């Protein structure tokens, strides 16, 4: 597994949140599917995003490719910001306005108090004059404070405008990022022939020449191991593995640079999974692709990915190179996940003990847990106590 982290960054996620809300007022329900994750994907590597159902990995993939409108955080593709959420900015504006109101109230109280004091004093006394000056300077302070806050609000509003603009990148640019979907049956339109499905990317770009399209479709079919005569068939005539290959062909025809593979093999038989994985590997080498591979099958991830991020209920709990992660898993959830993977080896299987992860056993700590880089390129999520524990563990192992 080569080290790609010195190369350019193809994808950057910064503090991405994706919330889904339904209902209003008291009945409002907010599902925090992705809860503040950040990671980078470098050119040419395969980055694995692993977790079980409900952890938010599919949501992350779909947010990156802009199928969902991002709630908060920023996503950069090849250095250009393509998605920016405004939730935290709106919250900041609200907070600033509240600050202004608070400060105003404070001043009013102060003025009232001072006036009450002053009325007891003599007009020419020093206290009186000082009190007057105090009042004046307090008023000035408030005015300056409001000035500053207003400038702040203006800046945030400009940010929001810029976000909104960045949220609509050019089609040509954004289609350099393509997605392969999980369900081979559902990801192909049953009413279109294979040819129409694959050529759609070209059609949307404005290609009208039938010959060019036919040629491209055949080229791409050959790349995925299908025959040209398969182009006139309908999806339901193909097996699961073949359908998935058609999906890959569809993504390839627009010459993407980044492919987000959303659990592309989970719905396939084990023997067919290998076919698709090999194909992805081949294509990656041939076209120098970068792949974000979302999966829940750790054995496939170990084989295929260079770096892995483990997700649990919307958070990244561990991020490391494949080798490092499997040699020194630190987070208890990672350990539980690893121990649960079944191996085709009866002796090993029958004798092994499983590790279970119970989140309720986590002790509550006053400081919020964060992602910490324990050793270079190995990040773990935890509170300061837990991080200490992990460091000790790592030291013991070495």
């Amino acid at each position, binding site marked *: 597994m080569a080290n790609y982290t010195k190369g350019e960054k193809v994808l950057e996620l910064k503090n991405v949140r994706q919330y889904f809300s339904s209902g209003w007022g008291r009945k409002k329900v907010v599902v925090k599917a992705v809860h503040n994750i950040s990671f980078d994907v470098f050119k040419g590597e395969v980055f694995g995003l692993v977790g079980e159902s409900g952890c938010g990995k599919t949501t992350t993939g779909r947010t990156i490719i802009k199928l969902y409108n991002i709630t908060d955080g920023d996503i950069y593709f090849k250095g250009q910001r393509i998605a920016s959420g405004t939730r935290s900015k709106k919250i900041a504006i609200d907070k600033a306005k509240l600050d202004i109101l608070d400060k105003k109230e404070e001043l009013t109280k102060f003025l009232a108090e001072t006036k009450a004091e002053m009325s007891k004093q003599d007009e020419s006394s020093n206290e009186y004059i000082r009190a007057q000056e105090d009042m004046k300077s307090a008023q000035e302070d408030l005015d300056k404070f409001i000035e500053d806050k207003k400038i702040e609000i203006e800046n945030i509003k400009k940010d929001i405008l810029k976000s909104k603009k960045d949220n609509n990148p050019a089609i040509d640019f*954004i289609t350099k990022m393509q*997605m392969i979907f999980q369900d081979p049956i*559902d990801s192909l339109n049953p*009413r279109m022939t294979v040819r129409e499905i694959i050529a759609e990317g070209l059609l949307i770009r404005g290609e009208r020449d039938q010959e060019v399209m036919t040629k491209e479709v055949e080229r791409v079919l050959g790349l995925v191991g299908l025959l040209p005569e398969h182009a006139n068939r*309908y999806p339901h005539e193909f097996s699961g593995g*073949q359908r998935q290959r058609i999906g890959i062909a569809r993504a390839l025809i627009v010459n993407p640079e980044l492919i987000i593979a959303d659990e592309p093999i989970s719905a396939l038989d084990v023997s067919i999974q290998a076919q698709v994985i090999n194909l992805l590997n081949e294509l990656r080498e041939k076209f120098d692709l970068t792949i974000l591979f979302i999966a829940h099958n750790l054995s496939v991830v170990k084989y295929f990915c260079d770096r892995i991020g483990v997700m649990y209920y919307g958070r990244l709990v561990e991020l490391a190179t494949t080798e490092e992660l499997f040699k020194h898993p630190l987070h208890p959830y990672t350990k539980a996940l690893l121990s649960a993977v079944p191996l085709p080896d009866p002796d090993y299987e029958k004798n092994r003990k499983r590790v279970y992860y119970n989140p309720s056993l986590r002790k509550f700590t006053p400081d919020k847990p964060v992602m910490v880089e324990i050793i270079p390129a190995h990040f773990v999520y935890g509170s300061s106590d837990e991080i200490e524990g992990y460091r000790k563990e790592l030291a013991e192992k070495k």
Partner: protein
Amino acid sequence: MENIRDIDKSKFSLVQLDEKIHDTKFETKAIGYFGDALRRFSRNKSSVVAFIILCGVIFLAIFAPMISKYDIDEINPRLQYLTPRIPILEKLGILNGYKTYNVQTNTIVSPEDDNYSTSKVANKEQYDTTFIVKYGEKTVVIQNGTEYEYQEIVYDTYKFYAQPYVKLNVTSSEFERLNAIEGAILEVRAIKGIVGEDAEYDLLIDPAVAEDFSVKTYYVFGTDALGRDMWTLVWKGSRTSLIIGLFVAAVTITIGIIWGSISGYYGGTVDLIMERFTEVLGGIPWLVIMTLMKLYFGGSVMTVAIALVLTSWIGTASTVRSQFYRYKGREYVLASRTLGARDKRLIFKHILPNALGPIVTSSVLIIPSAIFFESTVSYLGIGVTSDTSIGNLLSSGQALVTTYPHLTIAPALIISILMITFNLFGNGLRDALNPTLRGVE
């Protein structure tokens, strides 16, 4: 199998150790969506039969009134209430044009009697014994202290019709023609105007002679109160009903798809507002709408059609909307979005073709309910009044359903056939167009 030890060693050579193995070609043929749908439809026997019958009905509705030899604009009171008479079945003793009456004994006369009056016989105030086929029971009724005796008789209405009758307002040219036929004119009852060019005559003629009339007239469904052929009337009525049905279906689908797709595709606030609007609109009772329209726009076919559209577009829009919700989250729609497809492409190329099944089915099923609705309102008197329709026929027949049931049976039969066949056909269509059954046998 022979002894396995004896198998030739040459058979054990490896044949494809280093070859690249490809996917094999398909052995079955490719079938498109509609080919597949057609196959599924044709396997459903009841739907196919229903479809054939339906085609027959529609064919008759279009052509029967045209080729009918009876002119329904001509009113012949003398021909009124003839019972159905069908060529072969009359030999079996049913549908032979006979009618049973229960009349006062003193109205039964024979031509030799003194009080015999041709016109009274013509008006059925008297019953000529020559036309009586069978005598039934005698009953006695006492009313206001007086005894009345009633006799049940079976009257041959067709024979009765074949007797001399009054032809009114005959033009001069027609008069000349009839005059030329030997024995045609029995009596000249009245002359209006000056004899010569533009006089009009009321004649008592012998139709058998005058019009080459044979006693073998057959009214398959009988005649109505104005002597018009029920068969022609019923098909003319079905034509009206079908036109209304098709018009309503076409307009409703169009409005429904436009409304439903906007509502379903965009969702959110747009959907919210549109939904509330349809709810309010849907709460207005159809009877109110119908009555108001009749009041302002009269009783034409168009009025009923428009009223129907107003009440049924909501259902179609709702179906379309729910179909859009079902399909807009599909992975192939998402995949298209990632390829950069715009809304228009997603709606027309991806969602609608797949969503079409239930939409088409519900549209087809609108037709019978429109027909039924039209019949209902015409029956109630607030529907089509300017033209013949099945509802009108039912309405006029309803008053006499005990004495002349044939007036109601014919339209009722036709509308039942229409409804049943349309519904069966629609059901077959729904299964045939169901995309989830694709590739699953």
